[in-house]
């Protein structure tokens, strides 16, 4: 059984079944700005703070001040770790212009510096960032390659868990073929620009002696560190619940066997502008919070204060729920981030908030920010993920006129509630209808409903007759 150590990157340990190979080198490669250095720093901080494994950072690229500033943006205090002897940083500067080769040499100086730093803090983890700088600074490549082989042997003989970063290559995995020396674990980072939007991705190319996820995973670098998000389809093996979740609208529950939705199911609420979708969503959320559950709302069309104000006009007060953290409302425009990145940040929020109920308003905002195929796949992954977490999710959407795309989204959902406005001479008639609801004998009526100062009320005309 291969021993593994926690990487400090949330999500990466899940994909690798426990983290990076203990006592072995891992190669992390990627282009400039792909997050290699911060991945290395996260790995060291994790070891220093949580695993009783002090670390050494040999930086060939950035000086200590820059490293400290950049790491602070992820919430890491490298200076404090150095003071507490949990981290040793050595900035190795090579100036190729002042170096002349006059005969035989080796890189024993690097070994001495590394060993000195390792001994200083009793290090168990080492990061070398990035190895490519050596190729520019050392005039004799064949000596350098021999010394690199010796270096990796030395690291292994000392059982140091090491992250080596390297530039991505055009022909091989890395520019200088470093993968030839490090064969235990190879991770590739990638930043792709689509429609001027950047998406970071991580892929495990190789992990000797260990199963690992083979997909590309989006990842985020933010003030709480690096998060890798396994957003692939989880399959259909979700645990199914018989528990029911009230919709927050008594008359709607009545149409759903008198009990409401299934817990962990996905609900589509569709209707034209002004049909009351957002209010139904707001009432659903308020009811869940009233039961003491945590809720997460992704609002894409209105600011948070505007949503709160509008809800108040129909007797739904979100503010106290937001104040005591039962309700989290996020207002972002998905097109600003790109679809993949947006999904990644949604999943990250799910991990952080851990809600029982999620409302997405409107789903059409997600669909508008990619090609139809991409957005369909994204919604599917989001639903899969929510189901995997047992979250009951409500998606509000406008009919976009394209019947096939509407139906294909509806087919992903467990319950589909249709809202319609009918204009009459004497005013507006609002209609509600359950187009489908899997696993229950739902009403097939088209019922009237009203929106007043106390929210949505559904009228059962048959019952009144």
């Amino acid at each position, binding site marked *: 059984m291969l021993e593994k150590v926690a990487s400090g990157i949330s999500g990466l340990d899940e994909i690798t079944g426990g983290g990076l190979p203990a006592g072995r080198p891992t190669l992390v490669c990627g282009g400039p700005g792909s997050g290699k250095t911060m991945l290395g720093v996260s790995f060291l901080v994790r070891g220093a703070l949580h695993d009783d494994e002090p670390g050494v950072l040999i930086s060939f690229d950035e000086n200590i001040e820059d490293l400290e500033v950049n790491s602070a943006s992820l919430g890491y205090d490298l200076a404090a770790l150095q003071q507490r002897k949990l981290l040793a940083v*050595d900035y*190795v*500067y*090579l*100036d190729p212009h*002042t*170096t*002349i*080769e*006059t*005969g*035989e*040499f*080796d*890189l*024993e*100086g*690097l070994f*001495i*510096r590394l*060993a*000195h730093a390792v001994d200083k803090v009793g290090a168990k983890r080492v990061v070398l960032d990035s190895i490519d700088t050596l190729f520019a*600074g*050392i*005039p004799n490549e064949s000596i350098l390659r021999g010394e690199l082989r010796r270096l990796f042997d030395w690291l292994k003989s000392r059982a140091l868990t090491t992250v080596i970063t390297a530039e991505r290559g055009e022909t091989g995995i890395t520019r200088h073929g470093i993968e030839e020396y490090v064969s235990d674990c190879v991770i590739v980072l990638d930043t792709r620009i689509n429609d001027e939007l950047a998406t970071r991705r991580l892929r495990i190319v190789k992990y000797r002696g260990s199963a690992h996820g083979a997909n590309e995973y989006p990842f985020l670098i933010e003030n709480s560190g690096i998060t890798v998000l396994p957003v692939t389809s989880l399959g259909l093996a979700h645990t199914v619940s018989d528990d029911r979740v009230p919709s927050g609208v008594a008359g709607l529950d009545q149409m759903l066997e008198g009990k409401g939705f299934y817990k962990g199911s996905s609900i589509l609420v569709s209707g034209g502008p002004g049909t009351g979708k957002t209010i139904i969503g707001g009432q659903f959320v308020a009811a869940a919070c009233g039961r003491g559950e945590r809720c997460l709302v992704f609002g894409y069309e209105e600011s948070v204060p505007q949503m709160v104000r509008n809800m108040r006009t129909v007797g739904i007060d979100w503010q106290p729920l937001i104040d005591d953290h039962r309700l989290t409302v996020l207002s972002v425009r998905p097109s600003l981030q790109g679809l993949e990145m947006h999904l990644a940040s949604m999943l990250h929020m799910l991990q952080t908030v851990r809600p029982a109920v999620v409302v997405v308003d409107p789903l059409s905002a997600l669909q508008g920010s990619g090609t139809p195929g991409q957005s369909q796949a994204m919604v599917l992954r989001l639903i899969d993920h929510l189901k995997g977490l047992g979250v009951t999710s409500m998606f509000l959407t406008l009919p976009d006129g394209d019947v096939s795309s509407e139906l294909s989204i509806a087919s992903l959902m467990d319950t589909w509630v249709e809202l319609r406005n009918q204009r009459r001479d004497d005013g507006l008639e609002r209609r509600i209808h359950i187009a489908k609801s899997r696993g229950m004998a739902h009403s097939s009526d088209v019922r009237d409903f009203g929106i007043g100062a106390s929210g949505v009320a559904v009228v059962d005309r048959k019952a009144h007759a």
Partner: protein
Amino acid sequence: MSDLHTAVNADESWDLRLYVAGHTDKSVRAIANLNRICRQHMEGRRYTIEVVDLIARPQLAEGDQILALPTLVRRLPEPMKKIIGDLSNEERVLVGLDLRPSRAPPP
């Protein structure tokens, strides 16, 4: 290990430091080559040679940014120069130190 050779004869003072790691063949060759080159080409100049063994004093490697060994550092006169290797290529050493190859006979 610290060898000191001083010759006071010229107005410009040279400060040379040779970094090595223990008594390896490379270290011994570099020290011998440096002493010979200085005798032959630095006659009449004031210079000091300090040999630093990084195995005994690893903390000194950071200051002069030493990675390759042996490394000869010309600390004075400025600008600082770094020469790596066992100094067996005399022409390259002289170029690296800004010393013209001298045809003067050995002392």
